[in-house]
């Protein structure tokens, strides 16, 4: 497993609920969203079975932090080789649930 943590600038999240989204299965991932004591940044912790793709992860996660008001959230990811498309989708879903946009 390859592991790394990024702290990315982001607009403070409106509401912050703990939630788990997705399942760790081949080509898929789970995202655990939790509130943490920061305001203008989110912390993203990645553990992935696909080695050597850190550049791509950083690009995907940077775009996520830019496009979503995720300051004050910690996102912990267990990944089993999801493609960037699946990662982005799952992050958005987790975010929508955690920030109260969706049920």
């Amino acid at each position, binding site marked *: 497993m390859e592991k790394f943590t990024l702290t990315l600038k982001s607009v403070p999240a409106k509401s912050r609920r703990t939630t788990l989204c997705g399942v760790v299965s081949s080509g898929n991932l789970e995202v655990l969203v939790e509130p943490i004591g920061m305001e203008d940044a989110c912390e993203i912790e990645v553990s992935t079975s*696909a080695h050597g793709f850190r*550049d791509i992860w950083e690009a995907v996660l940077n775009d996520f932090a830019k496009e979503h008001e995720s300051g004050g959230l910690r996102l912990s990811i267990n990944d089993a080789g999801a*493609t960037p*498309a*699946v990662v982005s*989708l799952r992050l*958005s879903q987790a975010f929508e649930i955690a920030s109260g946009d*969706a049920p």
Partner: protein
Amino acid sequence: MKQHDHLASNRLARLKRAAGISSNRLVATEHAVQLLGAVIEPGDRVCIEGNNQKQADFLARCIAKTDPSRVTGLHLVQSVLALPEHIDLIERGQVERIDFSFSGPQASRLALLVENKKIAIGAIHTYLELFARYFVDLTPRVALIAAQAADREGNLYTGPNTEDTPAIVEATAFKGGIVIAQVNEIVDRLPRVDIPADWVNFYIKAPTPHYIEPLFTRDPALITEIQVLMGMIAIKGLYAEYGITRLNHGIGFDTAAIELLLPTYAADLGLKGKICTHWALNPHPTLIPAIESGFVKSVHCFGSEVGMERYTSARPDIFFVGADGSMRSNRAFSQAAGHYACDLFIGSTLQIDSHGNSSTATLDRIAGFGGAPNMGADARGRRHASPAWLRAGREAQLGAGIPRGKKLVVQIVETFREHMQPTFVEHLDAWELAKTADMELPPVMIYGDDLTHIITEEGIANLLLCRTQEEREQAIRGVAGYTPFGMSRDARMVENLRDRGIIRRAEDLGIRKRDATRDLLAARNIKDLVRISGGLYDPPAQFRNW
């Protein structure tokens, strides 16, 4: 006196050699190998029928058992090299040269034989191209074909899986060749005659029914949300936009998703009757919901699909069905239909480069083409107009003072395949393969200048609207997502292309990504398809979970 019937007298000589083992064209199963030894001559061009669906597998096994010292120097001219026996025959040294279309499961073994100079490849063709050459310079001397049934005269019933048989038999029988058929059963009365007995020299009851691969069955349960999203983009951003009524789909899950979105998403957009009415397509099980909801008016098939026999029979308004009530397919005609009569082809691929060339070749496999290049190419001989075709021509600014049309050729791909393999690359593997296999052309499935649109989860790139090579390349990079190829895009230029509508993201089309769920699929598993077909679809055992 000059002799004008060498071929006919040679055929007579061959028939005479086999006289002892046949009675009124019927040859006993156990004499099949002996028959082939008697009628095949060294250096013959031989076609062992088979494609990505049905296979004359019994006769392939038999020819691989013939005496290599007598049956030798063969030139195989056939659609596919898919069976291990095809390759065995080459390894036994009985084949000198091959001309074919597709090698599928045997692609790696073939690559090895080519590398070791055990075999010469004439060319890798498309199906239609190879059929064409049967009637010019690659006419078989002996054709080994597969049929469902024969009657006692030797008439053949090929039924729903007629496929390549008429093209092969026509070329062989009318040019002094020998036609040998393996049949699943011998009956007193055939439902209908697909091949008349006087075009057939011998028929043999095979010990087991000929093999048919259920290649076009896609289990809806395996369709992902990303594929649903891409399907929505295709329907709203392309089919609706151009008003695509006549089309052909590839066999991937992406296009299966589109088929399953027609009765739901497309119907909600009010597109019923406006898109996807006429098809050149195999009877895809995933098309059942669209047919049942009245979306589809006509489907002509290259082949059949295992389990769809009762369904196609029961829908003669849609499919091409004989007086006996069973469907007839015909690969050559359907390929022609796909090439000339369809406004759009959409399919998937493994790699796309900066020119939009796409290929399914990888380094250690010689896979070939099948039919996609004929579907996925502009038909420059086309002379009839349709709104979609004309609009594409206008967008591409074709024609010098004269209106011209263009076929829409679309690749629908995810930016990454499984195991994080990028679909978009700077350099196709096909180049390396061409070098190692000593091929004159890199095996490109669809040429960049034929390609009009690329759809990925990132949106649509409309290449028709690009005016320079640079714009075109940036349009491709602009939908290539987080692949290294995509990340090296010129961000400003891509935004500019987006402003001009050359790149359209999901949100530009008014599609919300969160709506892209599997709930939109008209069937979510094979069982749903059975139910929607009213129990007429009978899926093969490996696709069931009940």
